[in-house]
């Protein structure tokens, strides 16, 4: 799983974060290091689709983002699909 869009959404699922906090979080839970260009490419796409929104911050340069209801729904769908693939793959490996 290395889709930057899903990684960013998954990172925001447990709370609002700014860019650096997202990079750090994604590296911890997924073992994937998103570079600044890739991360902001994903942030811009997700904001355009209405799946994340900027939220107010005391630091106007380190802008935190939050997951929208639509973004949460999309993430749920993606993770559910992924979970089905993982479970099918594991079952097949056991029976191989």
């Amino acid at each position, binding site marked *: 799983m290395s889709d930057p869009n899903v990684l960013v959404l998954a990172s925001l699922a447990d709370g609002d974060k700014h*860019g650096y906090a997202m990079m750090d979080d994604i590296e911890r839970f997924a073992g994937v290091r998103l*570079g600044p*260009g890739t991360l902001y*490419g994903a942030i811009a796409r997700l904001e355009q689709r209405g799946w994340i*929104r900027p939220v107010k911050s005391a630091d106007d*340069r380190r802008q935190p983002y939050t997951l929208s209801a639509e973004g949460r*729904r999309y993430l749920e769908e993606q993770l559910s699909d992924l979970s089905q693939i993982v479970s099918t793959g594991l079952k097949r490996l056991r029976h191989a």
Partner: protein
Amino acid sequence: MRRLARCFARLYPRRWRARYGREFDALLEDVNLTWRDVFGVALSALGEKYMSDPEVVPRIVNLASRDIPHGYELETAVEYPRGDGSTMLVRAFCREVDLGDSYVTLNHNTRGSEPAQTILVFGRKGKVDGDFRTDETEMLVLRPDGSVHRTEQTVKTWLKYDGLRDRLRDRYRTGMQAGQTPDQIRQQIEEEGTLQSWS
């Protein structure tokens, strides 16, 4: 390394820099950059630059607005360009009722071939701070599978989003009052770049 990344970051289109430039520069300051990151910034900036060709801007296919008691209805159909050259049609119907210290919003929209989704929000307006307002909201999301998801939450509303909708409504109303046709109004909005700055 940081200096080089900043140089490449200037390759992002002006519109992108205006929206994300400050926060992106802050991220470049926070991160221990590698050569791969610097290369990634250059690649991403060039991608944004060539994908945001000025010829390829959102196109308003349909726009209509009606005044209703305490608010208005707005219908839009906008064709958004995608990176692969195809387009995605986003149809939206919005009914805004402003009750002073509270509001009711009904949004019904479809993106491309995805099933339609309806969101009903009842909100109590909170404190305004800059471009944001903190509201207490109750939201019902009517999902395409027939289920209803209900949430109560405190949300920070980004007022600029509402501002865009208000601008479209005002532009439509003044245009109609001045005797313009809906086509002329749509064309003028596109020429003004109202949607482009938000795409």
